[in-house]
C-alpha cells in the first residue's frame, strides 16, 4: 500500500485515493449464479487492529477511515460514488477518508449480480446500493452502541455526523477513532435502519471526484506506470492470424539492437525484453518471425458476413413470446428489415499491459483490470502456482470498456515473465492492441413488424451473433439464450400485443469476441430504435409521437421522451439537409431519451450539431457523474457510428492504430446537453447508457435529413450520398 501512503502524505483536504481498480460494463439482468456476498456482518480477513465491521470499512484509533472499493475505477466515477454511499450511512468525516483498491476476493468483494469480483454491465451502483448502505449503517450502529455503553445512555439518544457520535442531552462527543477499539467488541446489529433519502447529505450532491486531483499533475499511477527496481521492459507480438503459431524465429538482427536483453519465444507469440520500451520495440521490429498461420489464414469479413446472414435465416431459441405472433404478423401492413453491426475494438487509451515479477515460489502482478480475482486465478494457472502465491496489485484503469474483463494480457505477461529474471513490464503496442483485441461481435438483427391504425400490432425480432456469456460465464447461458445478446431486445419498451423475440447463436470463425461498453443493448437499441423510425414513417407519424403512443407502460421513459422533445426543440423547423433523430431506451434500469441533430452534405459526410439527452436513472448518487457518463458515453457511441469497424482479411485484422481506427475528436464534437431527472427510485446503471443512445439517434437524424434509411454501422457515406431512399 505504498501508493496509498505516499498519497496520504501529501493530500489536500479532500478524501484520498490510495490503491488500484476498473469499471464500465454492467448487465441489465440478474444472472442465475447470483451468490450471497457482501453481507455487512462479514469481517475481512485482515483488520490490523482496526475497527473493521465489514469488508468495506476500516477505522483506526486516529479516526482515519479506509474505504475498500469493491468495484474498479475506469473513469466512470464509481470510486467517488461508492465512497459517497458508504460515507452517507456511516456519517464519516470525508477529510479522514482514504480509498483503497480491493484485493482479489470474490467472497468479500464480488459483485452481487455476478457472484464474481467484476466491474461491468453498468452494475456497480445498482448491485452495491443496498450492500454498501447496510455496511455503512451497520458500522455506524456499532460505533453508536460503543459510545452509548460508555456513557450509559440509550443508543437512540445519540446522533452521528462527520465521524463523531454525540449525546445530545449532555453534549458529550466521541470521535470514531476514539471508539474504534470499543466498537470492535460490539455485536453487529441485524436489520439496521437505513437513512430516509430526504436526510441524505452526500448522496444527490455533485461531489468532486476523489481520483481526479492526481490526474492533473502526473502523479496518478495506472498499471502501465508501475516501476520496480531492476525492472525490464518488454513488448509482444502474437501471430497476426488469429490462432496461428510461431514457426521459425531469426533473432540475429534483434539481438544487435542496443538495449535488447532477451528474446522470448512462446508457441503463439514472441516477446522482446529490453532496458526500455524503445529497445523492446526496435528489437521486435528487427525480429524475423515466420508464422505458422494455420487454418484461419483464409478467413475474411466477406465470409464472416455470409455465414452470419445464413445463420440469421434460421429459427432461433425463443427468448420471449407474447400474444399470437402469427396472427399479429398477418394483421395490417408489414415491414421487414435487417440491421448489421460490425466488429469493434475497445482501444482503451492505456494500452494493454501487465508487470510481473515471477519467482519459483511466487508471482506478483501490477496491472489494471475489471476482473481482479479472475486475473489472479488465470495468472496462477499460467504461473503453475497455487492461487494464494499470486499477488495482484490492481490500479486505476486508463479506460476499460470491457477489454479488461479479459485476463489475456496478464496471462501473456506471466508467460513471458516466467522466462525473465526479475520484474518485467509487458506493454502492448497500439497495433497489437487493435489487432489482438477481443472484439465486440458482429450482429445481425432481423425484424418483421405490422402496422394497424398507426400502431404496431406484431413484432418478430431475431438477434444473431456471439454468445459472449457462454464463454465468459457459462452458467449464465441457458436453453440456448444469451441473456446479454437479447438485452434491450426482449425487454424493449413499447407496448405491442403480439411480440416474439428469438436468439441464434453464431460465433464468427477465428475472431475472439467479448463485451464492449454498452454490451447487448448496443445492438438491440440500435435495431429497435432505427426500425421504429421506419415504422413511424410508414404510419405517417412523427417519430416522437409514434413512440409516445406505445410507451403507456413506461411512464419514466415517456416523461424523459417528452422532456427531450421539449429541450431539443423537436418539431421546430431546420435548414435543408439537417435532421433530428430520436432514441429512447430503458436499458440498465435507466430511462433515457436522446435527440441528435445532424447535418449531412452531398458527399454523405455528417456533422453533429447538437445532442440532447434526458436521463432518469433513479437516485443520482453523484449527479455530475451521471452527466459526465452521458456526455462521454454519447461520444463513445457516436464514434462507433461514424467510424468504428474492424475488418478481417486473410485471417488478420486490417486496422492497426488511430489513423485507420478513427476516433471522434474535439473539432467534431457537438454541443451536448444532459438533463438529469429527479427521482426517488433506486439507482439504475449509467456507464454504458450513452453509448447505446448515440448511434440510433444519429442514424435517425440522417434518415430525417436525407430519407436514407441506413441499416448498417458505421454509417455508409456512399449510400447517403447516393440518396437511395428506403
Amino acid at each position, binding site marked *: 500500500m505504498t501508493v496509498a501512503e505516499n498519497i496520504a502524505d501529501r493530500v489536500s483536504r479532500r478524501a484520498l485515493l490510495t490503491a488500484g481498480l476498473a469499471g464500465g460494463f454492467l448487465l441489465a439482468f440478474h444472472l442465475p449464479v447470483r451468490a450471497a456476498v457482501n453481507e455487512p456482518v462479514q469481517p475481512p480477513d485482515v483488520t490490523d487492529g482496526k475497527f473493521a465491521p465489514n469488508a468495506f470499512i476500516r477505522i483506526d484509533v486516529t479516526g482515519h477511515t479506509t474505504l475498500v472499493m469493491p468495484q474498479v475505477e475506469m473513469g466512470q466515477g464509481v470510486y467517488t460514488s461508492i465512497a459517497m454511499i458508504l460515507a452517507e450511512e456511516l456519517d464519516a468525516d470525508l477529510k479522514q477518508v482514504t480509498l483503497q483498491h480491493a484485493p482479489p476476493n470474490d467472497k468479500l468483494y464480488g459483485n452481487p449480480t455476478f457472484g464474481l469480483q467484476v466491474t461491468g454491465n453498468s452494475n456497480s451502483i445498482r448491485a452495491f446500493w443496498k450492500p454498501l448502505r447496510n455496511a455503512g449503517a451497520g458500522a455506524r450502529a456499532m460505533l453508536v452502541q460503543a459510545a452509548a455503553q460508555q456513557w450509559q445512555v440509550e443508543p437512540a439518544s445519540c446522533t452521528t455526523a462527520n465521524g463523531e457520535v454525540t449525546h445530545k442531552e449532555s453534549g458529550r462527543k466521541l470521535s470514531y477513532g476514539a471508539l474504534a477499539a470499543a466498537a470492535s467488541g460490539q455485536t453487529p446489529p441485524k436489520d439496521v435502519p437505513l437513512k430516509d433519502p430526504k436526510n441524505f447529505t452526500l448522496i444527490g450532491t455533485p461531489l468532486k471526484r476523489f481520483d481526479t486531483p492526481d490526474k*492533473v499533475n502526473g502523479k496518478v499511477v495506472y498499471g502501465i506506470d508501475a516501476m520496480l527496481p531492476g525492472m525490464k*521492459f518488454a513488448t509482444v507480438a502474437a501471430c497476426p492470424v488469429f490462432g496461428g503459431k510461431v514457426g521459425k524465429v531469426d533473432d540475429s538482427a534483434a539481438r544487435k539492437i542496443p538495449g535488447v536483453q532477451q528474446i522470448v519465444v512462446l508457441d503463439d507469440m514472441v516477446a522482446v525484453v529490453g532496458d526500455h520500451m524503445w529497445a523492446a520495440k526496435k528489437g521486435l521490429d528487427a525480429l524475423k518471425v515466420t508464422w505458422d498461420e494455420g487454418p484461419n489464414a483464409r478467413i475474411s469479413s466477406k465470409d464472416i458476413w455470409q455465414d452470419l446472414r445464413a445463420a440469421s435465416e434460421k429459427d432461433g431459441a425463443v427468448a420471449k413470446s407474447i400474444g399470437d405472433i402469427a396472427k399479429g404478423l398477418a394483421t395490417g401492413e408489414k415491414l421487414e428489415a435487417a440491421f448489421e453491426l460490425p466488429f469493434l475494438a475497445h482501444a482503451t487509451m492505456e494500452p494493454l499491459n501487465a508487470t510481473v515479477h515471477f519467482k519459483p515460489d511466487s508471482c506478483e502482478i501490477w496491472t489494471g483490470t475489471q476482473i481482479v480475482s479472475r486475473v489472479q486465478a488465470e495468472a496462477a494457472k499460467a504461473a503453475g502456482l497455487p492461487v494464494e502465491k499470486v499477488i495482484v496489485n490492481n490500479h486505476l484503469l*486508463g479506460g476499460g470498456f470491457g477489454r479488461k474483463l479479459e485476463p489475456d494480457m496478464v496471462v501473456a505477461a506471466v508467460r513471458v515473465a516466467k522466462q525473465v529474471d526479475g520484474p518485467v513490464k509487458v506493454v502492448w503496442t497500439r497495433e497489437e492492441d487493435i489487432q489482438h483485441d477481443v472484439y465486440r461481435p458482429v450482429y445481425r438483427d432481423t425484424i418483421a413488424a405490422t402496422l394497424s391504425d398507426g400502431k404496431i400490432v406484431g413484432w418478430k425480432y431475431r438477434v444473431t451473433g456471439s454468445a459472449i456469456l457462454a464463454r465468459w460465464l457459462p452458467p449464465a447461458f441457458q436453453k440456448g439464450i444469451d441473456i446479454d445478446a437479447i438485452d434491450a431486445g426482449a425487454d424493449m419498451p413499447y407496448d405491442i400485443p403480439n411480440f416474439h423475440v428469438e436468439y441464434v447463436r453464431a460465433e464468427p470463425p477465428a475472431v475472439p469476441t467479448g463485451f464492449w461498453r454498452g454490451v447487448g443493448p448496443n445492438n438491440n437499441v440500435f435495431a429497435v430504435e432505427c426500425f421504429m423510425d421506419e415504422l413511424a414513417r410508414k404510419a405517417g407519424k412523427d417519430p416522437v409521437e409514434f413512440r409516445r403512443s406505445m410507451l403507456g407502460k413506461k411512464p419514466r421513459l415517456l416523461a424523459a421522451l417528452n422532456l427531450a422533445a421539449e429541450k431539443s426543440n423537436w418539431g421546430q423547423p431546420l435548414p435543408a439537409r439537417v435532421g433530428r433523430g430520436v432514441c429512447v431506451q430503458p436499458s440498465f434500469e435507466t430511462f433515457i431519451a436522446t435527440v441528435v441533430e445532424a447535418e449531412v452534405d452531398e458527399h454523405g459526410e455528417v456533422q453533429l450539431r447538437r445532442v440532447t439527452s434526458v436521463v432518469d436513472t433513479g437516485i443520482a448518487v453523484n449527479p455530475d457523474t451521471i452527466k459526465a457518463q452521458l456526455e462521454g458515453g454519447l461520444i463513445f457511441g457516436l464514434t462507433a457510428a461514424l467510424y468504428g469497424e474492424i475488418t478481417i482479411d486473410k485471417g488478420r485484422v486490417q486496422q492497426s492504430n488511430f489513423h485507420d481506427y478513427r476516433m471522434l*475528436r474535439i473539432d467534431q464534437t457537438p454541443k451536448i446537453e444532459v438533463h438529469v431527472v429527479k427521482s426517488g427510485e433506486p439507482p439504475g446503471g449509467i456507464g454504458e447508457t450513452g453509448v447505446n443512445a448515440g448511434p440510433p439517434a444519429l442514424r435517425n437524424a440522417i434518415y430525417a435529413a436525407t430519407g436514407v434509411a441506413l441499416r448498417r454501422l458505421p454509417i455508409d457515406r456512399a449510400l447517403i450520398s447516393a440518396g437511395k431512399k428506403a
Partner: protein
Amino acid sequence: MATTLTINGEPKSFDAPAEMPLLWVLRDVLGMTGTKFGCGIAQCGACTVHVDGKPVRSCLLPVGAVRDRAVTTIEGIGASTAGAKVQKAWLDLEVIQCGYCQSGQIMSAAALLAATPNPDDSDIDAAMAGNICRCGTYVRIRAAIKQAASGRQS
C-alpha cells in the same frame, strides 16, 4: 554516453541513444510516468510535452533533437501560469474521467493558453484536435479552456 536535458527546470542526466524518442527516456529511463504512451505514431497526443513552450509529441521526438531546449512535462506544468489555470479549471469543471489522456490534453491546453490567452472555438479545435479522449470529455475540455482563459470561478 551521458546526455543532460533540462526537464521542468532541473538538469537530468541519463544514457540513451540519440534516436530514442523522448517519451521513453521520460518514462522508462527517468521514471517520469506522467507522460503517457498512447499510439506511438503521433496520432493521439497522450505523450504531449512542451519543448521551449511548444507542444510536441514526445513519442516521435528523438531525444537527440532536444539538445539544450527546455522540456516541460505534466509533472512541471503547474509551475506556469497557464498550466496552473488549466489544472484548476480541469478540476473545477470535473473534466476528467479515466484520466489517461489528460496529461496530454492539459499540456496542449496550457500551450494554447500561453500563446493565445483568449482562444475562440476554432483556436481550441486547432490546438486540441490532436488529442484523443476515449472517455469523450471533449465538451468539458472546451468549457474548461474557456474558463481557464477567462479566470472565472466555477
